[in-house]
């Protein structure tokens, strides 16, 4: 309850005007008011005043949020609904224990040596394999692990995690900027080529790169599940690891990890655990998305892009858009010689993943995704590009379910390939 009490003032800023109805992906899919930001805030306020039950429906309502931040960006009073939802999930965990999935995530994340491969695989796949049935029936989960039947398409795991295949320090040219790279789970285990692309691009500019071995999962999955304790432990380790190298920038190639370092560490963890606040703000102030870093450092393409250009369309990850990063990736793609950028309709609309949202509300999640997939296909592009490996996984799934073989790439892969 402390988590909700702490947010009471934030909740009061919501005047129920309804503007969030135009922007909330979960609401636009379901058309029901408990899905929209102001509805969740109303429920949270009633929870705080002890006149709603802490039952499965309450949990389901709070789970039905992608934490995309779209409501806040378009809210006249800039109400931080994501923080309120996290607060409510934390209070729910306190009252009812963590939901099964969050428990699974947390157990794995607390594994003694952090992100061990086996544990990490289970964790990464959990959103895909643990699906909840029927929403109203509480927390029954089914997870016959090899059941990946029902048309789910899951990316294969990397044969070797990124972190175990690169040194901790890659010295650059004297005088060139220094960068600490926060890798994150998806890039470490599923898409190591994204990290390799970033290293190549930064080395091309002479940067010194630090890749601290002590880094962990960013903690956002645990945080969004309401497990603040686990995310605090992870954040502590990450802040220490990132802070152990004195560098000009901290860079992330995952929108969500970047969002955790840049926003959720100071805004949620820092408020809940004041002893973290100073370091959280220090790191947040240095954290940039890879596209912004490359733009600032004045990245220049090498090749001339002869031959047929690659037609790409760009999907805005919510956790970049919410930080105002929409122009940099597009400018970089336009700047890349062998690339032609074709805008899709609703590039700024969520892909529907929302971390564990995809599990709790699979139908809504894929309903949101169908609109996204259709918009991507209408562009006729050869590849869809994004700045978030989570989005990439969801976009791949959606495209394959529609029978499309379109390539899904990270912005950095496109730039490194040109």
């Amino acid at each position: 309850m402390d988590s909700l009490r702490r947010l009471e003032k934030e909740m009061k800023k919501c005047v129920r005007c309804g503007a969030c109805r135009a922007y909330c992906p979960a609401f636009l899919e379901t058309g029901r008011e408990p899905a929209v930001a102001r509805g969740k805030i109303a429920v949270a306020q009633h929870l705080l005043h002890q006149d709603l039950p802490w039952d499965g429906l309450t949990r389901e309502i709070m789970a039905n949020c992608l934490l995309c931040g779209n409501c806040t960006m378009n809210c006249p009073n800039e109400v931080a609904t994501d923080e309120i939802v996290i607060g409510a999930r934390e209070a729910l965990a306190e009252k009812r224990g963590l939901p099964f999935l969050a428990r699974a995530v947390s157990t794995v994340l607390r594994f003694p040596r952090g992100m061990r491969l086996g544990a990490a695989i289970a964790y990464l796949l959990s959103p895909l394999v643990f699906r909840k049935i029927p929403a109203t029936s509480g927390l029954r989960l089914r997870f016959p692990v090899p059941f990946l039947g029902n048309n789910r398409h899951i990316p294969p795991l990397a044969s070797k995690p990124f972190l175990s295949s690169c040194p901790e320090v890659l010295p650059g040219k004297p005088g060139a900027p220094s960068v600490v790279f926060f890798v994150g789970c998806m890039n470490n285990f599923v898409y190591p080529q994204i990290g390799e692309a970033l290293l190549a691009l930064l080395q091309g500019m002479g940067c010194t790169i630090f890749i601290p071995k002590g880094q962990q999962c960013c903690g956002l999955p645990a945080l969004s599940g309401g497990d603040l304790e686990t995310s605090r432990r992870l954040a502590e380790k990450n802040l220490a690891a990132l802070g152990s190298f004195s560098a000009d920038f901290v860079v992330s190639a995952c929108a969500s990890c970047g969002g955790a370092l840049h926003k959720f560490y100071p805004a949620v963890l820092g408020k809940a655990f004041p002893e973290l606040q100073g370091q959280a703000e220090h790191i947040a102030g240095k954290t940039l998305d890879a596209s912004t870093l490359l733009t600032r450092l004045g990245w220049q393409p090498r090749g001339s892009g002869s031959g047929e250009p690659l037609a790409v369309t760009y999907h805005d990850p919510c956790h970049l858009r919410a930080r105002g990063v929409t122009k940099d990736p597009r400018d970089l793609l336009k700047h890349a010689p062998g690339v032609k950028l074709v805008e899709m309709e609703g590039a700024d609309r969520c892909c529907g993943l929302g971390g564990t949202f995809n599990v709790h509300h699979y139908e809504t999640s894929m309903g949101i995704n169908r609109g996204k997939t259709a918009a991507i296909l209408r562009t006729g592009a050869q590849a869809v590009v994004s700045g978030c490996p989570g989005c990439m996984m969801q976009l791949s799934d959606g495209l394959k379910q529609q029978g499309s073989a379109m390539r899904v790439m990270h912005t950095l892969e496109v730039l490194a390939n040109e």
Partner: protein
Amino acid sequence: MLNKGTIEKLIGIVGQANLLTARQDLVCYGYDATQMEFLPDAVVHPADPGEVAAILRLANAEKFPVFPRGAGSGFTGGSLPKGGGVVLVTTRMNRILRIDTDNLVAEVEPGVVTEKFQQEVEKLGLFYPPDPASLKFSTLGGNVAECAGGPRAVKYGVTKDFVMGLEVVLPNGDIIRTGGETYKGVVGYDLTKLMCGSEGTLGIITKIIFRLLPLPEAKKTILAIFGSIDGAAKAVSTIIRGKIIPTTLEFMDHPTIQCVERRFHLGIPSTARALLIIEVDGDRDLIEKQSEQIRALISPLDLVEFRVARDAPEAEQIWKVRRSVSPSLRDVNPDKYNEDIVVPRSKIPEILRQIEAVQKKYDVPIVNFGHAGDGNIHVNIMIDKQVIGMEQKAQEAIREIFRATLNAGGTLSGEHGIGLAKQPFLAMEMGPEQMALMKTIKRAFDPHNILNPGKIFPEANEAAPFPPSLR
């Protein structure tokens, strides 16, 4: 409270998935933008007029109240289920049925979001002008029921000026069609206009036929900054007297500008005491000429700066000033009374002076902005409800502002309606004879008072509903 049998019958009409009774759900259909809250007993999402009719027939038979609701974005509580009952949400009926480019009409269902409709008609080179601030999320059914306005009302009018015909489910469950799709029509009473702004008390709108216009070729956005409030206020009537009807003529007073500048730093000079955002639309040549005419007309009126947007991003910058008002107001105080008085345009300078006097007398912050072009001013009294006595002072200030408004030949509400929020003030404007007639009309439509009861007219103490001080 609804009994179990009634709930079963409602499920029989709309299906289990479209009836909500869990307390968490009820909480989410008990509010609107007034921030008042009343919990309903159930929420139904009917799919079509047939289901709406069946619900209302049941309500009449079993005597439970039904509260129609669109997006729930109203400012006066028109959709709130005060006293409990069934909230009937219209948003599943959300199809644009046809856009007729030969006759410039369109037929829509009530749950269509206003902006979506505008985008669709604009794709065909047509234009639906009403533009309430909530257009990105409010529904057309709600816009008609509340007779929503918006900045473009100066030139084009409000929602009712575009409604040609309706399909309405009456409180007894009968389905009628009013008006039609002809521009002329004098057969019987104009029930279409009666339904516009009836706040969901006379029937539930299930189809709307709108009149459309050709989309103007271009528009021009101007920011005019004045060194005095009088200059801006006089500019409004000067422009109109100069035979130019702009599309919009938005006004912001000094406290509003200060709020916006403090928060957003939009580069408004510190000498600004008021500003107007002026937009003209039409043929390219015409609007060039008109913007020069406007400059000439208002130059003598303490004009500090006259900024004409050269392209869309510059126009966007100007509108950002207006859109920044709402988020920045709460820096003054956390709570607000948002009134939407209207006076004849020529009385704007006078009413602003009176509001200033009221503000000094009661010592409550008041910020004024809004659609000065049609005399509609949003008077925002910013208070902190935690401060003892402040709410009371605000109430008294509002009463005085309303009195001044009426003395100037104005009206209490231009586009928000009465609902629950303005009931205490209704009798200041409306005589007992007129109110009695209106109540008779309500009874003729809804003898059992099942549809949106308790709205518009104060129900308590029929004989003397208001203390004499209000009359």
